């Protein structure tokens, strides 16, 4: 409505309607959530990244906080403009539409100004990201020597990360040890179920570690938030990352690429320890490895009970994820072993299947002769299969 004398607009008061009140409430709620809660870091698990454990992870955290703040400010501005307009420029308040608004200088120049402003924000963000990106991507490719200065782009040790369906294998080629890392069942893991493993990835603080990733089957991804690290594990590829832990602690991650049935149950645990503790752990692992090798290659004839006991352990660690502790499997994907034709049929076929794999079942030839003899003995006699067969390591050696 216009004042006929002055030509000025008279805005009729309609008061605050319910629609306007609800819109404002919604706006404030979103604003409050974004600004009040979003940046608050609750270290346990809360609402933001967990506490970083490498310099790169810290850079990522800072970058994330920067973009979050920019996004929050932009949202406040956009919502303020929109809600002001919704409140003011409405027919129920008598506002007349400005039919020439798009023809003024704002209409002509805003299509230059707005892109330039957005470009400015974009360049700020991209610029801040550039150094973190380069530092992260430029993985060290040569080994550090005794007289490498600390800032040199080199690595002190290598870890190979191999994704399997549905567990992780960590190889330490310099130390000559292999760690197989599997989930811990709920009964033993309790509150840490899906975040706890039997054998963690133990790493020394302060060392520059070069990681090489690949997969034995389908695509997986190695993700540990505290390390600021995520890399796909792809069969036929070797991808690389690097990290230098700057604090001790236990850092938990998960597989981050859908890899089939138990993608949800492939946790990763990094145990970051002092150099001394790491050396002790390596020594222990090397000893274990030597003992297992000696045991497997001894010309001992193993008793049925010894094989069953050892076989049960091997089975429940490595086979039960698919074939279940009960031997009932999860058909059709994972066939039962209880009463199966393979486990009660010809021994030679059973050994061949376990050694070579078939279809979705991987080959287990990487286990040593004793482990294979034990697990096959167990499978042939447990759950009422009772074939009476006792397989010796020598039988496996002959079959390879």
């Amino acid at each position, binding site marked *: 409505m216009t004042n006929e004398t002055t030509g000025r607009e008279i805005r009729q008061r309609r008061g605050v309607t319910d629609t306007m009140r609800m819109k404002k409430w919604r706006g404030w709620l979103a604003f409050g959530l974004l600004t009040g809660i979003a940046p608050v870091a609750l270290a346990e698990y809360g609402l933001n990244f967990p506490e970083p454990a490498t310099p790169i992870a810290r850079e990522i955290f800072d970058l994330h906080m920067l973009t979050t703040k920019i996004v929050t400010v932009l949202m406040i501005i956009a919502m303020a403009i929109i809600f002001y307009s*919704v409140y003011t420029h409405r027919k129920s308040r008598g506002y007349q539409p400005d039919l020439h608004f798009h023809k003024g200088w704002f209409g002509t120049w805003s299509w230059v100004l707005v892109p330039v402003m957005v470009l400015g924000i974009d360049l700020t963000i991209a610029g801040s990201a550039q150094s973190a990106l380069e530092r992260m991507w430029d993985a060290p490719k040569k080994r550090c020597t005794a007289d490498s200065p600390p800032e040199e782009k080199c690595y002190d040790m290598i870890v190979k990360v191999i994704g399997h369906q549905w567990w992780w294998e960590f190889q330490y080629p310099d130390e000559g040890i292999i760690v197989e890392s599997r989930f811990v069942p709920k009964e033993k893991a309790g509150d840490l179920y899906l975040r706890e493993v039997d054998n963690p990835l133990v790493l020394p603080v302060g060392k520059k570690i070069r990681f090489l990733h690949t997969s034995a089957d389908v695509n997986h991804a190695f993700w540990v938030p505290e390390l600021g690290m995520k890399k796909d594990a792809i069969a036929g590829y070797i991808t690389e990352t690097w990290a230098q832990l700057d604090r001790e602690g236990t850092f938990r991650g998960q597989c981050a690429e859908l890899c*089939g049935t138990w993608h949800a149950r492939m946790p990763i645990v990094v145990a970051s320890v002092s150099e001394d503790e790491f050396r002790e752990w390596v020594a222990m692992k090397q000893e274990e490895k030597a003992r297992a090798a000696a045991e497997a290659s001894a010309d001992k004839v193993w008793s049925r009970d010894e094989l069953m006991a050892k076989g049960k352990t091997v089975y429940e660690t490595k086979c039960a994820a698919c074939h279940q502790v009960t031997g009932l499997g999860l058909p059709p994907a994972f066939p039962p072993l209880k009463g199966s034709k393979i486990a009660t049929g010809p021994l030679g076929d059973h050994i061949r299947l376990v050694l070579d794999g078939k279809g979705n079942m991987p080959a287990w030839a990487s286990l040593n002769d004793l482990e294979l003899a034990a697990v096959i003995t167990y499978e042939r006699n447990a759950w009422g299969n009772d074939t009476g067969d006792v397989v010796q390591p020598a039988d496996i050696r002959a079959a390879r």
Partner: protein
Amino acid sequence: MTAATMTHDEAHHGPPKGIRRWLFSTNHKDIGTMYLVFALIMLFLGGLSAMAIRAELFMPGIQLLEPDLYNNIVTNHAYIMIFGAVMPAAAGLANWMIPLMIGAPDMALPRMNNLSFWILPAAAVMLVLSFIVPFFPEGGSQINTGWTIYPPLSVKVGPAMDFLIFALHLLGISSVLASINIIVTILNMRAPGMTLFRMPMFCWTWLVTAFLLILVVPVLAGGITMLLFDRHFGTSFFDAAGGGDPVLFQHLFWFFGHPEVYILLLPSIGVLAQVIPTFARKPLFGYKSLVGAMLIVATLGMVVWAHHQYTIGMSMGAVNYFMIGTILISIPVGLMVFNFIATMWRGSMTFETPMLFAVAILVMFTFGGLTGVMLAVIPADIQYHDSMFVVAHFHYVLLPGAVFGLFAGVFYWLPKWTGHMYDEKLAKLFFWINVIGFNITFFPQHFLGLAGMPRRIVDYNMAFTEFNMISSIGALIFGLSHLLFLYIIVKTIRGGKKAEARAWEGAEGLEWEVPSPPPFHTWETAPVVR
């Protein structure tokens, strides 16, 4: 052939009776209706799958769904929503409105139009079969790969994958044929005086969308055919042991997959461009700049696909390029959002349901777009990638961007289609429950992602429980609200206050000059546009 010489029996005898009317339809209004009904059914099917997902994720533990069944439902939820609900609904709006808006009597290729639609129910059957086959003996494993169906996993999946590949081929053919129809119609059948720069923005958005579809659907078709060959004919396109490359599939998929999100978005942007000027009673702020922005979005959107693949191990140069390209898309998108806000600004607005959705879209889509900029930044994306943060982001751009835009279009044009005004009170109630439910469902998921919860997992550590519970409760509210949507639509079809030809006070355009509902044939004589 001019409109004036087109006469046939139907003008005197009305549309054919019974099933023939629908099975053999060459009428853009009927085909539009069929697309919309199909999309509505698929919306509920996709919604059911979402309810199943959120029910399983309500608490830690595996309560309802075996892991592979869960992974299959996650896969199907995406395919049903994208290819079954959003794309057909957008095609339905296109079929109904484009001829009316440009003053054309029908689409350029009416028989091909019929084919484009009827392929869809067949494709839906294939999709459903891909879900059912594993329940039968020798049916093999479920499709547990997610909608991205990456090899090597997708090569190992049982026969169900072949049904899915077949369904995708059918869906792709339907889209490409419909796109050809739309392009030919828009370029050739505009009324005299309607230059390209005078036609409604909704037609522009569909013109660009149609070109995008024709460019990228064949790439997906190529990729899934190579997958089929790897599965059955001994090839090794994606098998490293045979000399192939699993990552090649990812590139082929995402070369389609990224422009696909603009395909999903643009028709809804077109709806916004019709709705906002109507209810602000003010012309679109920048017609040419909106067209320009849209063209830049489409072009840039074709060359940034690998921002979905930052963790595969690309070189520094490649990854840097994709980051910058992706960040730059915020410029034209920002221009589009600015355009709509500037259209509202100093207008004389009323807030009927289409406008309520439009304003909600502007706020929430902007937010989703901004989390997209966060995701574009590679070092930070290393933490966000494949986490629930991504799930939250794309639901904030897809639901407000595509789905709510379609809802706005449905409410906006229901009076035109049915001749009745819908129940405004009920519709506003639907809007509020829907939007509040949506936010309760997806806002907490950002924090789940930041805290370290991956996506596509059937079970999670108990630390993630609270936000998952909130999200699932929101999903229940959000999901149930769609029953109200269905009720409103059915009620409007059956009756309601009579709608004028110009059903909305501020509405401009040729479609508002034909009666509500329009006769079976409209614009048999082309109007002259001054």
